[in-house]
């Protein structure tokens, strides 16, 4: 019960060595955050569970691919979960107008909650420098898994306009990011 809590990165390293106990501890430590993310993006419990299963099998097999110098373990895992959720959505889009009752709080104030890591603070700072519309488009796309056309419908703007917000916003984000990091 009083086992010390190991860092996610340590648990990933042990998982890469085939330690199933570490893998289970990794699941316990990260599953609520990852499931919340999957649910946020997918808004369907059954899909979120499928995506979690796929993702954890991938973590088991590919834990050795994790590179700690490139970011946090939870960030690596969350990116994989989100990518799989997006894959799922693009294969089988949600029905338009489907009620969102299974979605957790869609984090309208996500930026202010981004205070946990240095990377998050840096990204929040860069996002804060964007114009209102690109910033909103990027965060909506990220948290709700919206495609270009879903985003256009959501914010009531022409597709081309939304695309250019996203492109402009992402490229400015990168410029800001590289400035604060001193290159990639």
């Amino acid at each position, binding site marked *: 019960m009083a086992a010390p809590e190991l860092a996610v990165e340590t648990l990933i390293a042990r*998982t890469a*060595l*085939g*330690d*199933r*106990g570490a893998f*289970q501890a990794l699941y316990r430590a990260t*599953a*609520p*955050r990852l*499931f*919340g*993310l999957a649910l*946020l993006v997918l808004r369907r419990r059954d899909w*979120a*569970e499928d995506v*979690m*299963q*796929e993702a*954890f*099998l*991938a973590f*088991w*097999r590919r834990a050795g691919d994790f590179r700690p110098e490139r*970011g*946090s373990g*939870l*960030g*690596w895992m*969350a*990116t994989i979960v*989100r990518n799989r959720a*997006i894959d799922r*959505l*693009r294969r089988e889009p949600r029905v338009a107008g489907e009620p969102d009752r299974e979605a*957790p709080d869609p*984090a309208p104030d*996500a930026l202010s909650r*981004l205070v*946990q*890591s240095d*990377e*998050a603070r840096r*990204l*929040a700072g860069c996002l804060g420098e964007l114009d209102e519309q690109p910033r909103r488009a990027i*965060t909506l*796309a*990220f*948290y709700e898994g*919206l*495609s*270009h*056309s879903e*985003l256009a419908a959501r914010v009531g703007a022409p597709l081309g306009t939304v695309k250019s917000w*996203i*492109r402009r916003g*992402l*490229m400015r984000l*990168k410029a800001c*990011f590289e400035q604060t990091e001193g290159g990639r």
Partner: protein
Amino acid sequence: MTIRDEDEREQLAAEYALGTLEGAEREAFARALAADAGLAARVEFWGRLLAPLTEAAPAVDPPAALWNRIEAALVHPASTSLATAGWWSSLLFWRPVGVVGALAAVLLALYLGLAPPAAPTHVAVLNAEGSRQAVVVTVNLARASIAVRPLVPFPGAGALELWLLPGAGAPPRSLGLISATAAVERKVATDRWQGLAADAALAVSLEPAGGSPTGLPTGPVVCSGPLLALAHR
């Protein structure tokens, strides 16, 4: 599709990582990505750049049954969409247990006094994480013999079949049924052992009475471990 324009590559990689690409454009990009390591590196860069956003997602406890599903799929990945070519084709699945088992295998074999007198050429300790199940297998290629010794009796019903995974993606070869409780030593045809790769492994699967009807494993793997060559000098 090859995307040549640098700006275009960067923008598409960013949009793919964000997830907004859709339809034919997304499919075309995914195809290009599979054949273009430079493009994949850009997608990875963008994934890393955006990853901190995930920190703001709320925590929601998944149903308790989800872990059971994941654990079951580890033992028997054929039930998931990831394993399309059969569980045995994924040698990556076998290797992790092996890393842990490698040292233990040699120590156990020495402890059991098997190494010097029987002069085995290979040894394997088969185990399953989360269970005490362990089988020590020693192989003597010169005598074409194999000794199988379960350290803990296998529970339950069904036939236990031992498989050689020659490695390098080659299909498993049956080494016959083993006892759930007793140590067994027997001859194994030498041709079974040809073409062993460095990542060769042994595994035991649960099969219908009489063994696998197909010549390939059909049931769940109950334990596995790498086949380690012993150096004699």
